[in-house]
């Protein structure tokens, strides 16, 4: 008993050390995603270069990636080739053009290629706010029923696709077949 008592401070110290060490690996910039497991928010917005108004209902039926982008967002420029590559592999991507100008967004897609089935045009950031967007680019994995399964803030690259999205995406795609 005495031994335990004497070593208690050391044990306590080691526990604290372990706890703090784990804290070092945590990313303080990481926001826990409030919308995982929830439906995509309702919206009524039109798509880029089209007049028809779109609602969340029209997104359902198949799993897809929802990618938040804008021409003012530098990291989106870096991310874009990866999205084009994914669309070539047959991955369904829907864009959310966030707080942008329509003409600039159109030029961007003409110039760099359009990986999106379509892009929802959200100049006021209304849907962006409802999604809790805080830093473009952001990518969401949404299932065929409109439930958000995963979220990634920052550039989607090959490594993140492989590690975080690929298996989940194909599992969802197989599930509806």
């Amino acid at each position: 008993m005495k031994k335990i008592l004497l070593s208690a401070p050391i044990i306590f110290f080691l526990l604290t050390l372990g706890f703090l060490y784990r804290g070092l690996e945590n990313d303080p910039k990481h926001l826990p995603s409030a919308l995982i497991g929830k439906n995509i928010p309702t919206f009524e917005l039109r798509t880029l270069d089209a007049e028809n108004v779109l609602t969340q209902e029209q997104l359902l039926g198949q799993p897809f990636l929802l990618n938040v982008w804008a021409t003012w967002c530098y990291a989106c420029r870096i991310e874009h080739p990866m999205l084009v590559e994914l669309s070539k592999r047959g991955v369904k991507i829907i864009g959310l053009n966030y707080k942008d100008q329509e003409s600039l967004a159109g030029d961007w897609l003409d110039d760099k290629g359009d990986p999106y089935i379509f892009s929802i045009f959200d100049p006021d950031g209304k849907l962006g706010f409802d999604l809790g967007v805080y830093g473009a680019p952001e990518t969401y994995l949404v299932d065929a029923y409109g439930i958000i399964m995963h979220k990634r803030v920052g550039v989607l690259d090959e490594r993140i696709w492989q590690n975080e999205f690929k298996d989940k995406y194909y599992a969802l795609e197989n599930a509806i077949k």
Partner: protein
Amino acid sequence: MRYLLLFLISLLISVLNAEQLITFSDDAYLKRYQNLLEELRCPKCQNQNLADSNAPISNDLKEEIQRLLEQGLDDKDIKRALTERYSDFILYDPKFNKNTYFLWLAPFIVLLIGFWWVYSMSTKNYISQSKDRDLEK
């Protein structure tokens, strides 16, 4: 004299520009608005609240808070609307829930362990000392 006049005019302009740009239909909203900005954290910059932050996302959230205030929501509902989208991260005063209970309780647990430890040590010492005294006799 002319320069002095110019100086005074420019001073006046700068003062006018520094005026509070946010206006509410009711003055009570302004006070609540300022309190909310103090308590809510900028999602993009961990160590600033919305009041301090000039990040575009903070300005968006400020506008949104203004809109919600004008809609007549109370502070609790506004905070809920924001945490539903941006998670508890944005609260500088986190609620007690399954994610934060350790944060709230840990100091008390540590304190209790400390008391227990000091208490045990002191009684042990007392016993061993009295044993020593017994041996001396």
